[in-house]
């Protein structure tokens, strides 16, 4: 079960069983963005409130597997209070960590230095890369947040 323990690190199971920042935010001022994984049915709703160039608050709705839920939970703790630039950078780095090929078609650099420090707990999700089908689970909340922020900024 080596593989499994790589995938389901303790911290992931902890975020799955005790998810942070679950729930809803009033829309507006928050924006709600819905994401689907069409192949498996996972759904995530990211409520994000942006102000002063920062992610002022964020909450997560929807349902999904341990990987998508824990990824979403970790994401909320990682981005809350950060500037949009920092969040953009984090999203990018997370995608690089997850995969060589981004879902938007751009190629990530497989040799890119992914500093674990910056990721903190998020690095626990690195084991997912060995399970290609689950990568989409892990990236679903991030892609959804990404889209949500873009929509808010576009007005």
């Amino acid at each position, binding site marked *: *079960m080596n593989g*499994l323990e790589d995938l*389901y690190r303790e911290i992931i199971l902890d975020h799955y069983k005790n998810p942070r920042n679950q729930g809803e935010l009033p829309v507006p001022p928050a924006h709600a963005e819905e994401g689907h994984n069409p192949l*498996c*049915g996972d759904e995530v709703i990211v409520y994000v409130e942006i102000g002063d160039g920062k992610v002022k608050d964020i909450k997560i709705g929807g*349902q*999904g*597997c*341990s990987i998508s*839920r824990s990824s979403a939970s970790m994401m909320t703790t990682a981005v809350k209070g950060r500037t949009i630039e920092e969040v953009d950078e984090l999203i990018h780095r997370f995608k690089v960590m997850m995969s060589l090929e981004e879902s938007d078609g751009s190629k990530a650099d497989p040799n890119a230095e992914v500093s674990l420090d910056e990721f903190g707990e998020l690095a626990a999700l690195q084991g997912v890369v060995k399970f290609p089908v689950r990568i989409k689970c892990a990236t679903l909340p991030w892609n959804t947040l990404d889209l949500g922020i873009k929509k808010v900024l576009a007005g």
Partner: protein
Amino acid sequence: MENLSTPSTSNDSVGNVSVDEIRKDFPIFDRPADNRLVYLDSGASSQRPRQVLEAMDRYYSTTHANVHRGVYRIAEEATRLYEQARVELGEFIGAPNPEREIVFTKNATEALNLVSQGLGRKILTKDSAIVLTEMEHHANLVPWMILKEQIGFEIRYIPFDSQGILDLTDLDRLLDGASILGVTMIGNVLGTINPVADLARAAHSAGALLVADGAQHVPHMPTNVEELGIDLMALTGHKMLGPTGIGALWAKESILDLMMPFLGGGDMIEDVRLGGYSPNVIPYKFEAGTPPIAEAIGLGEAVRYLKGIGMENIHQHDHVLVEYAMMRIAERFGSTIKIHGPQDPALRGGLLSIEMEGVHPHDLSQVLDEYDVCVRAGHHCAKPLMKKLGVGATARASFYLYNDTKDVDALIEALAKAQAFFA
């Protein structure tokens, strides 16, 4: 219980043939016993016996040429083999005129799109109505939604009850004024065997045609379109020991004659001028371009294999495994595992959607795979049904002629490991 976990091998045969013998025909199961592949995903796609692979290789290695157009011998032989597969498949499902009523497609999905675009476009207008069920696979939902966007009409749905059984209380009202009733013969998530003959009778009294999605039925039970009173039926090769890339629509001759062409191109025409075309006779009218020739031949061989084992035997075998699995799950897991659909095994085909308390189906399937137990996790292309069940996904175990109680036992053990892991 002892006796159940080490079952007598007498259960483990399909008709007269032991599952161990059957497994020898399937190269993918050729592994050491302690590394057994517990493949419980035949509902998504079955495995293939070597007979099917050999039939295709033989074709490619001796007689491949394009069909219907060559005068030379290997082209003639290719055509003969292709047409013979059509007849074999037609006879297998009780088609009265197999050589004219079977249209080869790439899968069941294309067959159902052919129905919506070929028949629907012909007989429906914006004032029409059709009836589907809430347990349809996307393949029998989305083609109708696409046509609806193009020409408009009403889609009504037959609901199902808490046991996953179609609720026919309002059937007459739903069918009132409807032109088509589309139904899956066996639900691919709930496993429910639907009362197709009754539905056909009701449809016909209301003046509607019955479109059956046979994707889960044809591989697992004796299927006779005439006895069931079906008007059109879709099926798919890869779920019935055949190759990928092949499926079929069966429909009554008079209906195929009525239907509009769908895909345009070579072979489906009688004549083409710069100003327009006239369509060929059935079934060619619906087979545009080079068809899946080797795949049709492979499917014909799969049909021969299934006939050799006997469809009633296969249905019986599915039933035995489902009953055994339901019993063992109830014993071992009590209320921590819920099985969707009919609780009476007699009402279901050979599949089980499992919900384990506190463990998401993806995670369940992932842990099961660690023990070489393959089950499918997801929405099984039936999102409206999932919404009604109130879940995003289920884990589905589905059985076939090459599974036996050893596979069920392995499933039970793996489920227990998963429960422990996420406890």
